[in-house]
């Protein structure tokens, strides 16, 4: 593991750490809420990048892991009284397990076929949850307000949740770098470049792809639990939003897929842009159309995203922008 030798590693970690630290330094609740969303999207985009960026497999159903993990964790908290930390871990593991099962079935598909299958998976899981009584069916589940008292009072619970999200974001960045500079990561990138050639050279592609899929599913599951814990309720409509999957892809592509810094910057930029578009009287109903347009522009003209483009233009920055 030699990730720490790269300036890029410290730069990205430093950026995320600064984003979280500024909230604790100011103790501003408003800034905390804004940063929670920002870090949430950084985590979701970075986790998707492990599959999309490193192996080149486009997953349109990434949000299914957020939804399912969130549901499982919420179920354990609301029905069985589990503490947030264990429920978060369980939510992540449930998503990872789903990815493992799905990976075995869908990762044999390539290109557009895999992408299509992932859309179906999101809808199938949503329909399942909608009819699954222990999860509350279409009504979803709610947390009793008294639960927040375990965390030092209700307002304090929000700080804990933010702290957990901050930690999770740092962790996903760290893991991304460790993967990228490992033998495992090298195998993933060889799959992205030419899967057949990689196979011929002895890379065990089915195994590597599955583990990348599992790793990329672990974090959204945990994010889901934190998000719904903060909301106090969970419903199928909020948990499995296909449009969020698409927005996460835009975030990764905007910053630069395959780099670790790219998705972090892309998600922060897109989240800001989205906030602006949604409140602008001209663009308010067009934000998804603009997301699509943005994706088109990126794919056509800057396929490497912002970070990739800078790397190509300024070779001196290659060790800094990884």
């Amino acid at each position, binding site marked *: 593991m030699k990730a720490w030798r790269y*300036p890029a590693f*410290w*730069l990205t970690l*430093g*950026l995320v750490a*600064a*984003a979280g630290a*500024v909230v604790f330094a*100011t*103790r*501003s*609740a*408003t*800034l*905390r*809420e*804004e940063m*929670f*969303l920002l870090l949430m999207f950084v985590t979701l985009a970075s986790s998707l990048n492990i599959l999309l960026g490193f192996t080149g497999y486009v997953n349109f159903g990434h949000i299914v892991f957020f939804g399912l993990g969130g549901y499982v964790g919420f179920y354990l908290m609301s029905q069985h009284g589990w503490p947030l930390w264990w429920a978060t871990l369980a939510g992540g593991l449930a998503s990872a397990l789903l990815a493992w099962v799905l990976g075995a079935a869908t990762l044999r598909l390539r290109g557009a076929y895999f992408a299509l299958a992932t859309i179906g998976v999101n809808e199938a899981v949503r*329909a399942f949850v*909608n*009819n699954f009584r222990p999860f509350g*069916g*279409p*009504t*979803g589940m*709610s*947390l*009793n*307000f*008294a639960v*927040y008292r375990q965390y*030092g*009072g*209700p*307002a*304090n*619970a*929000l*700080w804990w949740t933010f702290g957990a999200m901050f930690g999770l974001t740092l962790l996903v960045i760290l893991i991304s770098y460790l993967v990228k500079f490992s033998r495992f990561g090298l195998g993933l990138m060889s799959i992205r470049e030419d899967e057949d050639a990689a196979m011929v050279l002895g890379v065990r592609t089915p195994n590597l792809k599955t583990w990348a899929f599992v790793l990329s599913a672990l974090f959204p599951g945990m994010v889901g639990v934190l998000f719904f814990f*903060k*909301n*106090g*309720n969970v*419903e199928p*409509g*909020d948990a499995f939003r296909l449009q969020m999957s698409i927005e996460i892809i835009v975030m990764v592509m905007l910053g630069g897929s395959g780099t670790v810094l790219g998705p972090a910057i892309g998600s922060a930029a897109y989240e800001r842009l989205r906030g602006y578009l*949604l*409140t602008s009287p001209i663009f*308010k*109903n067009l934000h998804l159309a603009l997301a699509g347009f943005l994706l088109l522009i990126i794919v056509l003209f800057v396929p490497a995203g912002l970070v990739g483009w800078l790397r190509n233009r300024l070779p001196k*920055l290659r*060790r*800094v922008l990884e």
Partner: protein
Amino acid sequence: MTRAFRVILVLSMLAALALSGCAKATPAPTATQPPKPTSPPAAQPTVAPTPKPTPVTKTVVIGFTSSKTGSQEVPSTGQTRGLELWLEQVNAKGVTLPDGTIVKFEFKTYDDESNKERVQQLYTKLINDDKTNFLISPYSSGLTDAAAVIAEQYGQIMITTGAASDATYKKGYQLVFQLYTPASRYLTGAVDLLAKLDPTAKKIAIVHENDKFSTDVVNAAKAYAESKGYEIVLFEGYDSGTTDFAPFINKIIGAAPDAIMGGGHFADGSTFAKQMYEKQVKVKFIALLVAPPELKFADIGEAAFGIIGPSQWEPQAAYSEASAKAAGIQWYGPSVADFVNAYNAKYGENPAYHAAGGYAAGLILQKAIEDAGSLDTAKVKAALDAMDVLTCYGHVKFDTSAEAHGLQVAHEMVYIQWQKDASGKLVKQVVWPAEGKSADAIYPLSR
């Protein structure tokens, strides 16, 4: 390596600068003392400094978000208009407290984009940055649920309107007060109406949208109907966005019920009604959720005729000072006609129930402040707990039990039915409850 680290250092500093710039660029709090997260719900508003003979004016900040964009835009706009009308009226005089302070009101409001993530972010901002004294909910149960968590966490009273779900009030909240009739009582009145119209009717078919609100409503209606001795011959849910109801209609025809109940929201409810008419389903009574009270429901023409729908409020509803006296309840605020006329004069249209709900939210808060004689959260909460009042919006009283604190217990749905006036034009008539009705219900439907 050293050069690279220099680059990192510079970039990190730039990033830190950018971040702190961000923090300032957004209208976030900066120097002002941030609230301690561990602090228990504190009494936010400060009462006027010292009671003096010359009236002191104090401005109370009421915070809420509305959906200027997103799926809830239309009903949310009505709710906001109702609130704005109340603000205009109350500020004409202000509320005078016992110490002579004249209280005026001011709104702080943002667009929540019909989005739960934004709601939590914005309510935190309202409380911490805009220093609100009281809150009003966004529109819809889902968004209100998200806002209620924040309101309660920061110890601010929130009057919820446009949110019918029962579940929100069963989580142990102490400061959240509901104005809408809860979802569990949306269709129970339709069962009572059916019983009144035809004691021999026994079989009910329930077909509903498979979402949170509609499922809550029909589950409660089913239990209620069964307790009254009805047989539920069909209980089916359809996915949101369904446009072809043929399979459900075939099942209804097979089950041969006396009455059909259910529905969901506007689009599916009106399509369902239309397709039932086209298939000439032989049934004596149809009551659907949400869609029938909308004026646009009449666009489906003949298919709308005879359809019954629950509404939180209608302009024809006969709430008055006299009916308050007869029921032994205190009357508060303007008459129904005064409210409708004022709304019409301001916006050039009749208020729908969303607007009445918004108006009532302001009115109830005003009444609670008057009763409390103070702006102190604990005193206003006590006044809301004790409230039992009839207004132009109807009867308002809150549950004070530990299990369901803040749940609305007195407000009744009114049931409208699409009938024809003398010229054959489709019009809405209130047919239930009996004391508020503007016409007798048409029963049985002849099709």
